[in-house]
């Protein structure tokens, strides 16, 4: 079999290929469900109900999708420039730490300004955290995959230190958690009596922004050019260093905002279980979306649905909810392979 590049990628193929890949992932996980001794159809029905079966389920899924949109965008933007930012988890915590520092009384602003302010400081913190590995990459050619990964551990341990030490809320009865964000900084609920909050609106807005930025702006164009062929981009006069740094600030910033979104939208105070690996899952979200910012919205909702659905399923029929992780990982790999067939046309020799 030979692969030849396609001159034009039909639009439907861009959509159909990942859907087919996801279908295969479901088929693989059906085997695991069978192994677990549960009926496959019922299990998947339970999953679907848990994800979308009621107003509560839908709002829960969307609540979970909001941070995934942010971390998915963070990965999508970075991967477009071939900047392998695997540090979304650390950047998420950095954003939450910054928001905690400024939002727990240090600064008080009216709500209309306080929320954007918290997103801003979170974004700056996330962006700055990614700047270090990126500068090491540009100046010393230190591989950013490993440095961003390792920084995740460092940041989380630092948060751990703060929450057990200087930032520990004395009113929390011994639990390791920080003081709550002030009232003005809390993201307002969207649906009465549900957890869904306006962080989703922020996430959607930034997805549209990121799409427009990549698609229509000059800097976005440069990010794509550098990502595809840095030598040609440099020869054409596109500043590589500046482009990569801009990408880093944007990507780290988006991941940082995921932390703010979770912090100010749900509990309102920082704990160590703020993120169940949203930073890592964001990579799968981005790949599922083919690195397309608008696609990230759909794939984040999809993955959030899988996680929420799997939680419901595991309560109903004793299948571990780690099945959601398996499903996501399988889908990630299969979608990656499907991309090959979108870009190239397989031809029998």
């Amino acid at each position, binding site marked *: 079999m030979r692969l030849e590049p396609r001159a*034009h990628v039909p639009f439907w193929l861009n959509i159909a290929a990942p859907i087919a890949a996801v279908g295969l992932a479901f088929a693989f996980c059906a085997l695991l469900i069978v192994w677990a001794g549960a009926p496959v159809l019922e299990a998947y029905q339970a999953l679907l109900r848990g994800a979308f079966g009621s107003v509560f389920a839908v709002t829960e899924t969307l609540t979970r999708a909001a941070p995934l949109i942010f971390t998915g965008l963070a990965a999508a933007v970075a991967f477009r420039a071939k900047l392998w930012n695997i540090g979304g988890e650390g950047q998420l915590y950095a954003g939450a730490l910054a928001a905690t520092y400024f939002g727990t009384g240090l600064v008080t602003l009216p709500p209309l300004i306080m929320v954007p302010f918290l997103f801003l400081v979170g974004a700056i913190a996330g962006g700055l955290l990614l700047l270090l590995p990126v500068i090491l990459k540009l100046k010393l050619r230190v591989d950013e995959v490993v440095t961003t990964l390792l920084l995740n551990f460092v940041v989380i341990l630092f948060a751990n230190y703060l929450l057990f030490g200087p930032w520990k809320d004395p009113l929390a009865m011994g639990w390791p958690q920080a003081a709550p964000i002030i009232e003005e900084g809390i993201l307002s609920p969207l649906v009465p009596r549900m957890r869904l909050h306006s962080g989703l609106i922020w996430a959607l807005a930034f997805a549209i922004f990121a799409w427009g930025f990549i698609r229509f702006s*000059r800097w976005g*164009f440069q990010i794509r050019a550098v990502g595809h062929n840095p*030598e040609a981009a440099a020869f054409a*006069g596109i500043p590589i260093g500046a482009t990569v740094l801009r990408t880093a600030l944007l990507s780290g910033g988006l991941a940082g905002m995921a932390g703010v979104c979770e912090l100010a939208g749900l509990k309102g105070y920082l704990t160590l279980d703020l993120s169940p690996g949203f930073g890592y899952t964001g990579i799968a979200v981005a790949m599922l979306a083919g690195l397309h910012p608008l696609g990230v919205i759909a794939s984040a909702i999809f993955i959030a649905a899988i996680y929420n659905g799997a939680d419901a399923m595991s309560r109903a029929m004793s299948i571990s909810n780690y099945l959601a992780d398996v499903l996501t990982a399988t889908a990630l790999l299969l979608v990656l392979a499907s991309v090959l067939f979108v870009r190239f046309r397989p031809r029998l020799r």
Partner: protein
Amino acid sequence: MSDVDEAAPESAGAQSVLRLNGVTKRFGALTANDAVSLDLRSGEILALLGENGAGKTTLMSILFGHYVADEGSIEAFGRLLPPGKPKAAIAAGIGMVHQHFTLGENLSVLDNIVLGTEPLWAPRQQRAKARARVVELAEHFGLAVDPHRLVRDLSVGERQRVEILKALYRGARVLILDEPTAVLAPKEIETLFATLKTMVAEGLSIIFISHKLNEVMAIADRVAVLRQGKLVAELPVAGASKQSLAQAMVGRPVAPPVRHPLPPGEVVMQLAGLMLHGEAGQPLLEDLHLLLYGREILGIAGVSGNGQGALAALISGLRLPDGGSFDLLGAPVKQTSPLAMQRRGVGRIPEDRHAIGVVGDLSVEENLILEASGDPRFCTLGLLRGGVIRRHARALIERFDIRGADPTTTTRALSGGNMQKVILARVLSEKPRVILANQPTRGLDVGAAAKVQQLLFEACAEGAGIILISEDLEELLQISDRIAVLYRGHLSNPVPVEEASLTELGLLMSGHGEFEAYREGAGHAA
């Protein structure tokens, strides 16, 4: 062709060592090799002559088992060679020296040579024995190279010797050399030719692939000419003339692009006493003097690796000189970047269009604005103006006759010639005053090359001065106004093309001749 065979000299008595029978290979619609039949006799050097894209490399890749032919068969020493098996080709005594060396840079010469000669699962390498054999072979054929050095520390000529040793070490009786002189300095070419003569004297047979007539005449016993995949001539060199070979290679006499000679304009670029050093401090360009006038094409001849890359990097805005002066349109260049050079009216056509000319995964319209994405025409307030860019692309595709492309086509899918036209469209539409054209026709077929030359002429007529770097002397003689030769970082005094002789240029390219720096005005025959 059979009559030619009978007319072959004494070597006709020698037996055939390699025989290709009707080899055909198609890539999609393109027929790269069309029923090619060829004989190689014991103890001869057979030149395989042909233009870029004539199918020489494809044919040899089939012979060596990298590709599988659609039709036809290959016999080596009377035995049928199984298709698609490099190992079988090696076992049959065929050795190949690729144009792009297949060496591991961080490994030693010895490691590179012995790779694959021992059973993979052997518990231990026989290093001492291997080294002795390599040293012996190297001495015998005059291929001096230290087996313990790392390949990354070797010169290009030394690397080629390693490649030849690799083949000899495997007991090759037939050696295929793909464009072996392209990367060599004249001195090294002499050494290589001496080695090849020793080999055939020992009874080895050699296929020498080239598109350079002079070399073919100098080294080969017989020559086979490929054109558009077909074998069009096969004759002894002794009875061939350069004209007839050239005619066979190109086919019809190609209509040279129309050129109306124009009076030169004023000086657009001036280099004086220019110095440029490499990373290790070695000189790349030394005391270089050059005046470029508007409306002229200044051809830079020379074997690659003699400073062409450095000169191109300088004019492209990738390097600043370490000494001397560099003036563009009468103003000195103090700081540089690709962008700065574009702004000052320099258009740059890079050497390698796939690697640095275009971003293959972006669309044609995006590649057309790659250099101008910040230009107010295409960008306001940081946003790209999609409508303008689309219209711009449509206009350029039409004007530059870029085939098989609309604005949203992925550039990767274009043919080499059309990809080059995208680059030319991007550069020439900006009406540059100075154009650097680095090997602009390399690897293009005759038609596409003529189109590229035509476009350069048009830019020239509009007032641009063009620096044309090429390894192809015949192209340079055909389209330049003046020609200078780069040799080890020195530039010879440019001479008007009508006064230039092949012999003289050849001498200059091999370092014989005057390399005194010429001074302002001296080189231009007014």
